[in-house]
């Protein structure tokens, strides 16, 4: 108690902690970290080719008979979803924009119907840009379909 008060008074007078080692540490660490810092983070999306997907499909068919194939078509009008025994209305573009929110809602609905299915096949037409495909893959991954294959 006593000591605390006395140091408090001393620092009030301007006689404070020796910060030189801290500054030294900062001056070494900050340039080093700035040099090694990555400001653009790069990640990767995994993708199954249809050929390998097919072979894994046939393997899985032997294991369990209840395999559901979900097809997600992308064309210049919007998204179309083909799901066995479930009717999903096509999701048209709104102006020039694809409606990813509606796609996410539809995928959630499918996931609710088939909770064990993790495979989805994306079928874009030739003109669809790479960014759109990646956005759709993101929507699929976020809504419970991590095994994505692409077929042309």
């Amino acid at each position: 108690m006593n000591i605390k008060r006395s140091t408090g008074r001393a620092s009030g007078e301007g006689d404070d902690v020796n910060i030189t080692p801290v500054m030294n540490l900062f001056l070494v660490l900050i340039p080093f970290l700035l040099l090694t810092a990555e400001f653009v983070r790069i990640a990767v999306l995994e993708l199954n080719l249809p050929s390998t997907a097919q072979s894994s499909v046939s393997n899985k068919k032997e294991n369990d008979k209840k395999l559901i194939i979900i097809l997600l078509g992308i064309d210049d009008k919007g998204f179309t979803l083909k799901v066995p025994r479930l009717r999903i209305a096509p999701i048209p573009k709104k102006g020039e924009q694809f409606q990813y929110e509606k796609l996410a809602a539809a995928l959630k609905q499918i996931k609710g119907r088939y909770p064990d299915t993790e495979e989805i096949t994306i079928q874009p037409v030739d003109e669809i840009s790479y960014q759109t495909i990646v956005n759709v893959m993101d929507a699929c991954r976020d809504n419970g379909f991590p095994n994505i294959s692409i077929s042309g």
Partner: protein
Amino acid sequence: MLNLGGDKFVLGSRRTRRSADMRLRLTSMIDMFTILLVFLLKSYSAEGQIITVTDDLRLPDSTAEKPPASSPVVIVTDRMILLDGEAVASIAEVERLQKTLTIRNLRNGLAEKKEISEALGRENEALGFKGIVTIQGDREIPFRILKKIMVTCGQAGYSNILLAVNQKE
């Protein structure tokens, strides 16, 4: 004159006295450094960058979080297709051959890489062929180009395709 000199003297003496017990106010600088340090330590990765991207290549944005793996890299810009930094085909050429799905030079290049890594695999298990290829594509390239590249990779035996993307928060 005398007065002025006296003033100067007084000022000077006051200044020296002040500097004797004046301290640099470092608090705000230390605050700043601490914030910087925390931010940089948080974003620090020990592995370094496996993939570097050229300036004219704009990768698509994605929420993916998987870190990149070291593998052959196919770079697709809006003009050229490159395999590990070597040009193998031009986009115009690929567009012209509409019917063929395989890009021959790319397939040959990948086949060579496969042979090399299989030979390495015989020496050391850990370096063996895993069939992983990374595609770095510009966000604007159409699917018809991407499709051909994927088919070519598949034919060359590279069936695990990783798409490089910009990680967005």
